[in-house]
């Protein structure tokens, strides 16, 4: 057996893309704060029954509309329900919404983007036209129409938000596929006779995941915000759901004599939005060295 010809000495190996990414991400303090806050949110959502054992719907009619106190940190609502317990439980809905919306956005957007970028021609033209159309609606308006058609409810609201917000995923995936098409490893795949399915799933899909991960983080705040807006309008989660938007809707009715009902779920919403926005910023900067700073 003959030894392989020695490789030319390349000096110290350059850091891998993942190592570079991690090094840049680690320096982005707001992103670390965001990641920590999201972990905390997940912990709160998981431990909700331990943190607030009475549950989000336990009424105490002797404690109606009480302001914040040592006993009820966030006060109580008109049924004497503890708002802290409701806001804590609401974190589960927010994370559920984020997960489901992102999953649907990814499934629709990445699939259509892969198909458009790989097959080109009429497939591309048809998909791109669809993307332009979905994009042309003002946010919330298309979702409002779909929820009005399907009927109010959290599931319908989540579906409506998801099917109206996948367009950026399709665009970014298509663009990425166009840049990957000519790469050697893809050309090799074609040369060894891989089918379309294998090229799409094994060669192209891994290459588009990074950009889509960043896009996911960046769209989570919009997903949570728009679903809350639908619940706030009475079209999303219905009572007695502790969805933050739904509590805000109750808070709006009680604005004159119970400010705390409107205040605290909104603060939870803002902190969640900030956490995901900071994390998204950090991921984007770490993947794209042009930015940063």
């Amino acid at each position, binding site marked *: 057996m003959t030894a392989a010809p020695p490789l030319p000495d390349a000096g110290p190996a350059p850091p891998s893309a993942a190592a570079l990414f991690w090094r840049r991400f680690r320096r982005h303090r707001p992103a670390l704060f965001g990641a920590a806050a999201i972990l905390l949110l997940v912990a709160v959502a998981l431990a909700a029954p331990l943190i607030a054992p009475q549950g989000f719907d336990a009424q105490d009619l002797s404690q109606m509309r009480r302001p914040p106190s040592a006993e009820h940190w966030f006060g109580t609502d008109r049924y004497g329900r503890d708002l802290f317990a409701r806001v804590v439980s609401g974190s589960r809905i927010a994370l559920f919404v984020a997960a489901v919306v992102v999953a649907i956005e990814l499934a629709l957007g990445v699939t259509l983007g892969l198909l458009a970028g790989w097959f080109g021609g009429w497939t591309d033209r048809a998909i791109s036209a669809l993307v332009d159309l979905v994009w042309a609606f003002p946010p919330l*308006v*298309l979702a409002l*129409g*779909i929820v009005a058609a399907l009927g109010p409810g959290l599931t319908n609201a989540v579906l409506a938000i998801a099917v109206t917000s996948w367009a950026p995923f399709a665009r970014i995936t298509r663009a990425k596929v166009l840049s990957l098409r000519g790469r050697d490893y893809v050309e090799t795949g074609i040369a060894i006779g891989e089918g379309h399915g294998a090229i799409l799933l094994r060669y192209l899909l891994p290459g588009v995941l990074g950009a889509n991960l960043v896009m996911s983080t960046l769209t989570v705040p919009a997903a949570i915000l728009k679903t809350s807006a639908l619940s*706030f309008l009475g079209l999303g989660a219905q009572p007695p759901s502790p969805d933050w938007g739904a509590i805000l809707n109750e808070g709006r009715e009680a604005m004159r004599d119970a400010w705390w009902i409107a*205040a605290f779920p909104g603060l939870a919403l803002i902190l969640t939005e900030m956490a995901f926005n900071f994390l998204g910023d950090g991921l984007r900067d770490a993947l794209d060295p042009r930015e940063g700073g």
Partner: protein
Amino acid sequence: MLIRLLWRLLAAVPVVIGVTLIAFLILHLTPGDPVEAILGARATDEARAALAAELGLDRPLPVQYLAWLGRALTGDFGTSIMTRTGVLETIGARLPYTLWLTGSAFAIGLALGIPLGLYAATRQNRPGDHLAMGAAMALYSTADFWLALMLTIVFAIWLRWLPVSGARGWEHLVLPALALGLPQVGAVARLMRAETIAALREDYVLTARAKGLAPGAVLRGHVLRNALVPVVTWAFLALPWLIGGAVVIEQVFAWPGMGQLMYQAILRKDFPVIQALLLFIALLTVLSNILGDLAAAAIDPRIREGLA
């Protein structure tokens, strides 16, 4: 340049038509229809059939859509099912309110966001920058409808400085404009900071400094102009989106603009109003994109030459 603009208007036609087609399909292929909304569930079959015929809802869908499109092209948008008044008049009555509201929100966003972003950029990575960008992120992450409630509680209910809702004078505009505009401050500041930092790294800034121009003059004469181009383009791009986003805010403050009309029309399946509003917003989108390009060209002579 004129030809380019006309070409872009033409290219937008299929998108605008597609938007109305999608809206048409969603409204007509889902349960619930305007006849039931008007007559209630207990009406006789004859009364339903008569009203459906009057509204043209008994014809096949493609015929209905083409008939609508044909009339719309001649400027006839029909009558609102909710109010039985002309759609164009209905929208016309709402338009000034929406323009006032979104215009004020943008004024707030730009007037506060540009200085905030500029301040952060000139103190890059120092405490002032972190503080300003933290504030920008907080504003950017704030739900406008929550801000609307908080502003109402503080300024209308506790302090009684401003009215809770309605639209009778300028004092009714303040709270909705702030609720819609303050989150925009965050968006503008973030964009302005990024663009200013990018402009500060350019060669012409180095040249200007090298020839001894004072830092303030460099900032005003060279950096600001270049950083403003994307901000202005963004503002025009975001304008139609803000009109859509005004749906919730207009609802909270009972502000009689197009957002509130859209919300009511969607809930009551007022097909002629929804179609006309969507057509209108889509046209506004195209128009504001073009205006954005023109504004950018007005600021930056290089773009002006590129457009010619």
